[in-house]
């Protein structure tokens, strides 16, 4: 049994202060429509370097779409004012991916809900893929990694507690382990920004906590900026400093985690008609670990 409420977050105030002012992500007037369905309806979002931000919102509110646009995996709608910069590199502007986007993607590590490892390759090779944006193209294409690079991969695996699995095929690992391999891959990528789209949605509570602990550790120890979309509000409150809530493709709330209260959540989720879904999904997935006094029970009643 894991008690989330016992978790303590120590914010390194000095480091935060030194980073303040630098923006890790600058998204301006970002929109995306699929046919006549507006997924993201004009979002401005700045994220400070070194911050850890949760993106919450009910299903279909546009979280994945927004994150994928930030990572340059899909383009925004054409719009003169619309642009996305990550780590001071232009990812896209006016609906077009930047011509250097392939290279610039290496400053953003993306963690997927479905892990997206290459299942037939070894765990270590999957981690080494994180280096492709950094090392010379010809060397990467020949699968030629130096001894030092392989050592780095092992060290990254050690950090997520999987160094003994290095030689195994990725497909032989459990979901939680695969997600940790994906995190090790992002460690090797050494990106300034880590974007995680529901990294724990397909994991059991124990693995979920482990994954969130590692992400939080990377944020604190390495000073990486982390943006993570989450379905579970209590995780967002426990691990992140800032919480951004999306509804119908718009930013509805944007608060520090301490300031977030139940009314905000009811408003965020309640304006949608899926309020009931939200309650059900919480009580289903989270009844294994009860977080006393957190927003969950109150919300489930609401």
């Amino acid at each position: 049994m894991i008690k989330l409420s016992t978790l303590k977050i120590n914010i390194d105030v000095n480091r935060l202060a030194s980073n303040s002012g630098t923006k890790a992500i600058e998204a301006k007037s970002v929109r995306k429509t699929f046919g006549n369905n507006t997924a993201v309806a004009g979002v401005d979002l700045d994220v400070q370097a070194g911050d850890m931000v949760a993106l919450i919102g009910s299903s279909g509110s546009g979280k994945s779409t927004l994150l994928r646009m930030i990572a340059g995996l899909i383009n925004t709608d054409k719009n003169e004012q619309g642009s996305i910069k990550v780590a001071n590199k232009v990812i896209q502007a006016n609906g077009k991916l930047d011509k250097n986007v392939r290279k610039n993607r290496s400053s953003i590590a993306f963690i997927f809900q479905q892990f997206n490892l290459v299942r037939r390759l070894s765990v270590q090779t999957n981690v080494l893929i994180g280096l492709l944006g950094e090392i010379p193209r010809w060397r990467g294409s020949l699968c030629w990694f130096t001894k030092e690079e392989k050592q780095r991969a092992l060290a990254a695996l050690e950090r997520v507690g999987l160094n003994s699995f290095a030689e195994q095929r990725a497909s032989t690992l459990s979901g939680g382990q695969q997600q940790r391999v994906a995190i090790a891959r992002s460690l090797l990528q050494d990106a300034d920004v880590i974007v995680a789209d529901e990294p724990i949605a397909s994991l059991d509570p124990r693995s979920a906590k482990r994954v969130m602990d590692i992400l939080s550790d990377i944020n604190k120890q390495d000073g990486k900026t982390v943006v993570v979309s989450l379905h579970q509000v209590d995780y967002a409150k426990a691990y992140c400093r800032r919480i951004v809530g999306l509804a119908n493709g718009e930013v509805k709330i944007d608060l520090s985690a301490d300031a977030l209260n139940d009314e905000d959540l009811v408003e965020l989720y309640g304006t949608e008609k899926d309020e009931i879904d939200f309650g059900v999904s919480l009580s289903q997935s989270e009844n294994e670990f009860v977080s006393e006094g957190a927003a969950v029970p109150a919300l489930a009643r609401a």
Partner: protein
Amino acid sequence: MLNKIVQSPQDASDISAQNPLLEKKGIMQLFLWGLVAAILVWSWQGAEMNPYALWEYRGNMAEMLGDFFPPNFHDWNLYVDEMLTTIQIAIWGTLLSVILAIPFGILSSENIAPWWLYQPIRRFMDACRAINEIVFAMLFVVAVGLGPFAGVLALFVHTTGVLAKLFAEAVEAIEEGPVEGVRATGASGLQEVIFGVIPQVLPLWISYSLYRFESNVRSATVVGMVGAGGIGVLLWENIRGFMFKETCAIMIIIIVSVTLLDMLSQKLRKQFI
């Protein structure tokens, strides 16, 4: 249409009485069956089908069969030698085509290449595939002269067309997720293919290649008949010379080697799936 009626025979018969639309479907079906029958009759005439001839000439056939036995293995080492050449033709014909089918297969996949690239490549591969090895063998015999190399080239061109299509189908069936995972690290397009696509399709590709090798060993025995080297040359000479006991020996050697290779290759293929 057939499916629908098979799935719900009761509904169909119940409603068809009142429903003119369903009645129309029934008429349509009758028409289609009529069409199939007409095509069969038409091609029976064109192919000059004459089963009676089998009976009429049964004596001849029995006599000819008798001429085949006992097989004459006197020149067996020559036959085995030529059979090995045949296998060597198949090995190189297959290998060259695998090497070319990799880029052509990837570039004719809808999920990898833009339409202006995959459309022309696909048409080109269709052309390679449409023409039988024997025809290519005749052409290459004219171009590079009699001998096994003409056979290699013939198999190579035709098999490239076949494998590129099979390879592309495998590529089009991959999971998109891992490719996106590779893309997100800042990889190049080529690297996406190398790390994201090829590991996913490799087992199928190997299996298809081995399968085509089996079939190329069989084809290689025939290209010899138009002078493109291997055991086919001997086969054709002996048939033309009415030396059926030798022909029989050659055929037995072909059957034994093809069967052995099939078994070996099948074993190998199982390893990769």
